[in-house]
């Protein structure tokens, strides 16, 4: 009994002394740790991609709490994250409603399409190659194709095709913009996700010169400019450029481009459908730039699906909400996540 008693007592004593010590210490040496840092950190995506310019997500969390970074500094997390952060920080989330942007490759001059001007040897990096006589491609604006963008993407959203061009997985791309900064040829741009039509050439040389070095280059023929019903595309500096705010994905320009420089997946083109809510006000027919809608007044109107260009103006204009835009084909569903 004796032994049990002693040991119980000494353990209790030890526990008391050390417990007391800990309590004393924790009172005396208590340090204010801003708990918001941890909460902000939890709200961030945790990809540690560094696109925000801070050392990892924890660096940004600290900076946000200290007021050194805006609440929407994380492009990857997008508006949902910045809203969460805003609520933790107790401020309202301004300007968080911006459209999501993703990266797109604006060049089609792969190994097959673009001519080489020299036999480049050396470090297999786009930037390194671009420092040697501007890169091996005949077109000084072309993608070099060594995949610096692929390497830098923290989300594995980029793969290099066999043709030597980067392919961006729209689902994986978070719009962090690291690839845009990395590309020495400015071939990648961040564009609104909803835009489907892109001029995939940036060569500002004369059309003839461009054609000499690349089969997919913009030859500045201006046909797209004429075809666009919305004044959204113009040839500036020998190359067509889309005003993404004006473009409605009608794909007219894509149809006319002789060099296939402008691209879009036709499968993505939407068509208008008019349902029974239609009262036959004819507003849609008047507004349709393609004259695809016909119908008599006060009768249900019909869309000529073959002519409809999918711009969605009718949908916007219809006072009764009788028009819906639907995709003609299904979005290519072959990704593995």
């Amino acid at each position, binding site marked *: 009994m004796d032994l049990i008693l002693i*040991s119980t007592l000494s*353990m209790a004593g*030890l526990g008391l002394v050390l*417990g007391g010590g*800990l309590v004393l210490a924790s009172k005396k040496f208590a340090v204010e740790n801003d708990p918001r840092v941890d909460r902000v950190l939890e709200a961030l995506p945790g990809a540690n991609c560094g696109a925000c310019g801070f050392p990892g997500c924890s660096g940004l969390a600290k900076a946000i709490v200290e007021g050194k970074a805006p609440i929407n500094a994380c492009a990857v997390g997008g508006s949902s994250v910045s809203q969460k952060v805003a609520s933790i920080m107790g401020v309202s989330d301004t300007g968080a409603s911006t459209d999501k942007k993703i990266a797109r490759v604006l060049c089609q001059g792969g190994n097959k399409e673009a001519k080489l001007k020299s036999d480049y040897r050396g470090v297999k990096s786009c930037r390194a190659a671009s420092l040697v006589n501007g890169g091996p491609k005949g077109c000084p604006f072309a993608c070099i194709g060594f995949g610096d963008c692929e390497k830098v993407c923290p989300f594995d959203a980029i793969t290099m095709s066999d043709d030597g061009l980067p392919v961006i997985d729209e689902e994986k791309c978070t719009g962090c913009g690291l690839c845009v900064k990395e590309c020495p040829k400015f071939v990648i741009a961040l564009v609104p996700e909803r835009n489907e039509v892109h001029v995939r050439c940036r060569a500002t040389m004369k059309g003839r010169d461009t054609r000499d070095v690349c089969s997919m280059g913009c030859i500045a023929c201006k046909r797209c400019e004429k075809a666009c019903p919305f004044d959204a595309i113009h040839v500036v500096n020998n190359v067509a450029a889309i005003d993404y705010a004006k473009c409605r994905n009608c794909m007219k320009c894509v149809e006319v481009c002789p060099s296939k420089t402008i691209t879009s997946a036709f499968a993505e083109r939407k068509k208008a459908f008019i349902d029974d809510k239609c009262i036959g006000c004819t507003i849609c027919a008047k507004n349709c730039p393609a004259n695809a809608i016909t119908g008599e007044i006060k009768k249900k109107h019909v869309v000529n699906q073959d002519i409809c260009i999918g711009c969605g103006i009718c949908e916007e204009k219809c006072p009764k909400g009788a028009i819906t835009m639907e995709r003609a084909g299904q979005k290519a569903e072959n990704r593995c996540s």
Partner: protein
Amino acid sequence: MLKELFFIIIGSVLVNNFVFSRFLGNCPFLGVSSKTETAVGMGMATTFVLTMTAVAAYFIQNFILVPFGLAPFLQIVSFILVIASLVQLVEMVVLKISPALYNAFGIYLPLITTNCIVLAVALLIPQKNYNLIESTIFGVGAGLGFTLALILMSGIREDLEFSDVPDALKGPAIVFITAGLLAMIFLGFAGLVPL
């Protein structure tokens, strides 16, 4: 006397290095040996805690456990209790007194509780019948040995970043192999000091 102390140091740093030949403290050895800077920080923090533990263990053993005949069964519990509390205490104190020091190695302190070197040193001191000075030196030596192992490994691992290690061996596997080779090299010190 001095000679004995010297042998204790050499013994625990080189001949019977705690990591390479006594197999102690392997988890933190694996965990924080990827960067030399953190390795140095961890090594210093551990050495500090080890020294304090060695002293504490000496006192508890000789002034509580032995006098009351509790040593055979309360040793582990009381030592570990002391270590855990000590580590937590040190952490709090360092954080308060010198945030710079805390940033340098405070983050490693919580890891040290579960570093088995610490308890092992506490348990070995009574076993080896060390006096107070010897105990302290033993603690320091153990810490230095651990630090040396960490620094060597971290240097090699920093270089490994540029190496084309086979995929399957990346991570802990190559670290173990390297540790094996280091352990092999440390056997060269075998027989250096009378133990």
